[in-house]
């Protein structure tokens, strides 16, 4: 595959906290325009991998390139150029608590494009808020006044503020009710289709994996043990992957997915 089509390339990544080694020789490629699901047991370092890629965690060893640029020890002004091109949704939303939802969305735009007309800025923030499925009256609310699901949507609106090419989502559907989670999946998919996004999606939600992911990367034993479509992964015959996708929850997710397809076919 041509280098141009690989948005994120990780080679030989090693991360450790004191004695505890989280990653050792981890390799991963994320292709342009795909939704890559990242799964793994609790504590296998999914979030640490994301933090390494976006430069919040300096790895001990290894090479990480995003958009063809090495992001490990990057100069500050070069790092800003790359940060403009991605958006990150943290687990809890990580909204700035002293700003309203709409002001939160404006922060990245103001930071990177300080000369933008304030009226246009307000308009952009408005349609971003509505686009992520928040009610229009959520704009002037403070994060403390929002429910968990609304906080995630507001976080997504902020992550999408700059129309990024690459989107990092850390467990976006955790803690949402099934309807909210399904709506969030649909939203991610529709935004990805519309804006041609590449999505790096950390999740525990099997329904999300089946519904929206093009490929899934499995992290275990400190590295990515397999990447592929779910069918390819299941065919691999690895005990953990088997357990993960064929356990009771995995089977339920498959059933839901097939029921959905059947219905769509009947329509």
């Amino acid at each position, binding site marked *: 595959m041509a280098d141009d089509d690989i948005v994120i390339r990780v080679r030989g990544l090693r991360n450790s906290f004191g004695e505890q080694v989280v990653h050792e020789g981890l390799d991963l490629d994320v292709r342009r325009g795909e939704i890559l699901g990242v799964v793994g047991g609790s504590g296998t370092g999914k979030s640490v991998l994301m933090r390494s890629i976006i430069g919040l965690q300096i790895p001990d060893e290894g090479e990480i390139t995003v958009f063809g640029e090495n992001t490990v020890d990057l100069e500050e002004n070069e790092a800003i150029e790359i940060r403009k091109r991605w958006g990150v949704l943290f687990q809890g939303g990580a909204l700035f608590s002293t700003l309203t939802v709409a002001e939160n969305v404006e922060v990245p735009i103001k930071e990177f494009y300080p000369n933008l007309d304030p009226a246009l800025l307000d308009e*952009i923030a408005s*349609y971003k808020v509505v686009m992520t499925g928040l009610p229009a009256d959520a704009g002037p609310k403070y994060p*403390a006044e929002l429910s968990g699901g609304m906080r995630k949507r507001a976080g997504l609106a902020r992550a999408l503020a700059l129309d990024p090419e690459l989107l990092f989502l850390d467990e976006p559907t955790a803690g949402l009710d099934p309807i909210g989670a399904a709506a969030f999946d649909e939203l991610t998919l529709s935004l990805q289709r519309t804006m041609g996004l590449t999505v790096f999606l950390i999740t525990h939600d099997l329904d999300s994996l089946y519904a929206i992911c093009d490929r899934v990367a499995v992290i275990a034993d400190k590295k990515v043990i397999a990447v592929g479509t779910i069918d390819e992964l299941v065919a691999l015959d690895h005990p953990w992957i088997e357990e993960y996708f064929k356990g009771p929850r995995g089977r339920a997710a498959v059933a839901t997915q097939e029921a959905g397809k059947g219905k769509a076919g009947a329509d």
Partner: protein
Amino acid sequence: MSAPAAFTDDSAGGTLRFTGSLSLANLGDMPERLAAYDGKVEHIDLTGIERLDTIGAWTIHRLAQRTGADIKGLNADAQHLFDQVQAADQPVVIRVQHAPAFYRVLGEIGEATIQTFKTMVGLLGFLGATTLAFGAILKSIFVPPRRFRFNATVQRFEVVGVSALGIIGLMSFLIGIVIAQQGAVQLRQFGAEVYTINLVGRLSMRELGVLMTAIMVAGRSGSSFAAQIGTMKLTEEIDAMRTIGVSPMEALVVPRVLAAVVMMPLLGFYSALVAMMGGCLLCWIALGIPPVTYIQRIREVVPISDVYVGMIKAPVFGAIIAIAGCFQGMLVEADAEQVGLRTTAAVVQGIFLVIVLDAFFAVFFSSVGWI
């Protein structure tokens, strides 16, 4: 790199032709130029554009809305993007609307007044609840199972008392030196340097030892009580305790209040002694009074009633500080920012109440004859 966004008008047909990349990074001043464009627009032609993002789509959407022009030259993806942006066009309020300044100031004064009264009533209520919890624990000594948390309390003793010895000692020693030095300078004018000993001895035993300790304990322990309990409130630990049947008042508040009540007199007495040692050092060096004489004079001029005054005030101060800290911690709700605000409030309230009470004590002890 993509070409900057631009447009050309074809004045005869009323068509605006866009070229370049219509994205946030390449938009430049196009929105302003578009707003200033007052020619007739009937058609918007996007055939020539390289890239379109939602912000570009939004700009075009607004233009089309303003002029009533139709848009052509969109491929399927761009059309989809347009539909999304169009669907999201709803009025959204960005900021909280504020009332005029005059009304706002009035409103804030009113709210602050009500808040202060509510806090005072709440604090009184909390004092009552703490007393009841103490009562329940005392009762459980005679009617088992015993509910007194011995380990938790002893651990608090260490945190509130033993760990504070270093900083309180240092502070008191320095304050002793400062009082003696200032006293010596002033009293020398009357040839009464020897009374520096009276000044240091009585002041530190009666007032400063306990007061400075109280301020230090409020800053160290009152704030940490508020922060600990506030964080536990946020992580729903306190709700979990309640559902299991453990009373947070008994498990969290009583050990902390008890620790402060027991430790304050000990720390206060220690502080007074160390302050006198500081004074002793200065008297020896600056005034040439040897330590033996200093100690003898202290025993003559500091009446035992001064020790009583200090030791009666200390536990009351300890209780006030601990109750204010725990009360503010319990008030934390919603978000992490509150923990910071409540911690500050706990220290301010604790120190304020200690100083108010100290004034009452001063008047009271003078009028009962302990002068």
